[in-house]
């Protein structure tokens, strides 16, 4: 298919090599017990589930981070890439992460339905670092 067709380009991009790779061979899949921060949530529309566990040192930096759960390639690859991006960052920096940061890491554009898949891990991560009881869509509005 022609790469200059914008629609086609976006579609092909959605399943680009990096995303299929990280979906099939994630680098940060696992569970940390004990952990300093853990949170999990699901996307009721498609049943995707993500749990994220973090270990944080005394200076407030994320030293270890993993995710577990199941779901589509977009949700799982974005979780893996998001975890990679926060290692070594401070919890305060993680709190500042935005929707666009995840889309930049993924390097793709998504419609409203798949955006929920891509942002589930960010929602879980932010609910965890803010110490919230419930993950709210507002966490990933911007």
């Amino acid at each position: 298919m022609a790469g200059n067709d914008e629609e086609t380009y976006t579609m092909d991009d959605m399943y680009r090599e990096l995303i299929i790779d990280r979906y099939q061979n994630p680098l940060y899949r696992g569970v940390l017990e004990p952990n300093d921060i853990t949170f999990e949530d699901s996307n009721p529309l498609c049943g995707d589930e993500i749990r994220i566990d973090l270990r944080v040192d005394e200076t407030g930096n994320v030293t270890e981070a993993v995710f577990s759960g199941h779901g589509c390639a977009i949700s799982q690859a974005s979780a893996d890439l998001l975890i990679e991006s926060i290692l070594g960052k401070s919890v305060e920096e993680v709190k500042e992460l935005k929707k666009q940061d995840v889309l930049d890491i993924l390097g793709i554009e998504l419609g409203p339905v798949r955006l929920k898949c891509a942002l589930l891990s960010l929602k879980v991560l932010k609910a965890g670092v803010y110490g919230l009881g419930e993950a709210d869509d507002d966490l990933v509005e911007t």
Partner: protein
Amino acid sequence: MKTLVPANVLETDRIRADFPIFTREVRPGVSLVYLDSTATTQKPNQVIDAMDAFYRRSNANIHRGIHMLAEEATQNYEEARVKVASFIGSPSPRQIIFTRNTTESINLVAFSWGRSNLNPGDTVILTEMEHHSNLVPWHILAAEKKLRLEFIPIDQNGILDLEIYQQLLTRNPKLVAFTHMSNVLGTINPAAEITHLAHAAGAIVLLDGAQSVPHFPVDVAALEIDFLAFSGHKMCGPTGIGVLYGRKELLDSMPPFLGGGDMIKRVELRSFTPNAIPYKFEAGTPAIAEAIGLGAAVDYLQDIGLQSIAAHEHMIISYALERLEEIPGVTIYGPKADQKGGVASFTLDGVHAHDIAQILDREGVAVRAGHHCAMPLHDRLQLTATARASFYLYNSVEEVDRLVNAIYKVKEVFRC
């Protein structure tokens, strides 16, 4: 061995010409293969034109109005009721209540009949394959009334276990509410047998006809069911209009569901007298144009013939199951073609249903992915999501081939 491609039962080219949506491309150069009719069907010109003509020529509020347009609107609306009544074999149009959809019809039964007839400790029998619309209204009522909910289980082929059903019937249930055809497995349940056994045990029967009424002949008198719920938008009609059929004695004895205009005979400051059926259950200005659209959809389906539609879908689903089974890694859920309607829910090893649907969409093939509003059924099957291709009168065997080719594209992208 290559599967022999069967001939289409219906003249799909001629039928497709009635549906303007099939003239569009999904994206440049990619024509639409619409395999999501279980969610909602496409609409033929006959339905669109009937609604258009109503708004352009006859629009007025119904009943009470003493002017030409009000009379035309009332007549058109009530004619739609007569058409629907004849379509499902209702003894009288007055037993046809217009609602918003199947969900509202079931809620009407739960909150009107259920609230006034069910008592703490009473048993209601449902099945493991119900859509959320035939589960949650009963969850809500069960919590309020302390009801006991029992479920007819399915076997590994997605068929209801009627032996366990008979054991459940010894609990003297007050109601058996079940789907005529599963929106996920496609299983067509033996409605007459289930109803007969329920009545013998003294229970009332509610049939969820959302997936059956559009696809094969359903006759409420022959089935002897007490309530039938279905939606207009799944049978070539518009959204926003659904139907509840009820046995007359039941409807007459039931209290109103929603209060307001049109459902009353007389109102005083502190009291009201409800109207007769069906108006007792149609509070407020109803979906007039949508009812007229549904009437046109009924005409359209009857012109083609429900038997022919059912035969066409049976041919397509038989072919689709054969073709899908050929694909390595594909698992199909539900019974064989002779026990199901035109629904094929499947998974592909190593690929989430959402990713399947996304890549099929690139090929112009529209399927649904997820739990299809049947989470308990997916739990039972130990699945989080399936991809679902569903077929209707406008689908052709050629479109099954496009589906299968697109699934091979998915396998390419996911290297599986």
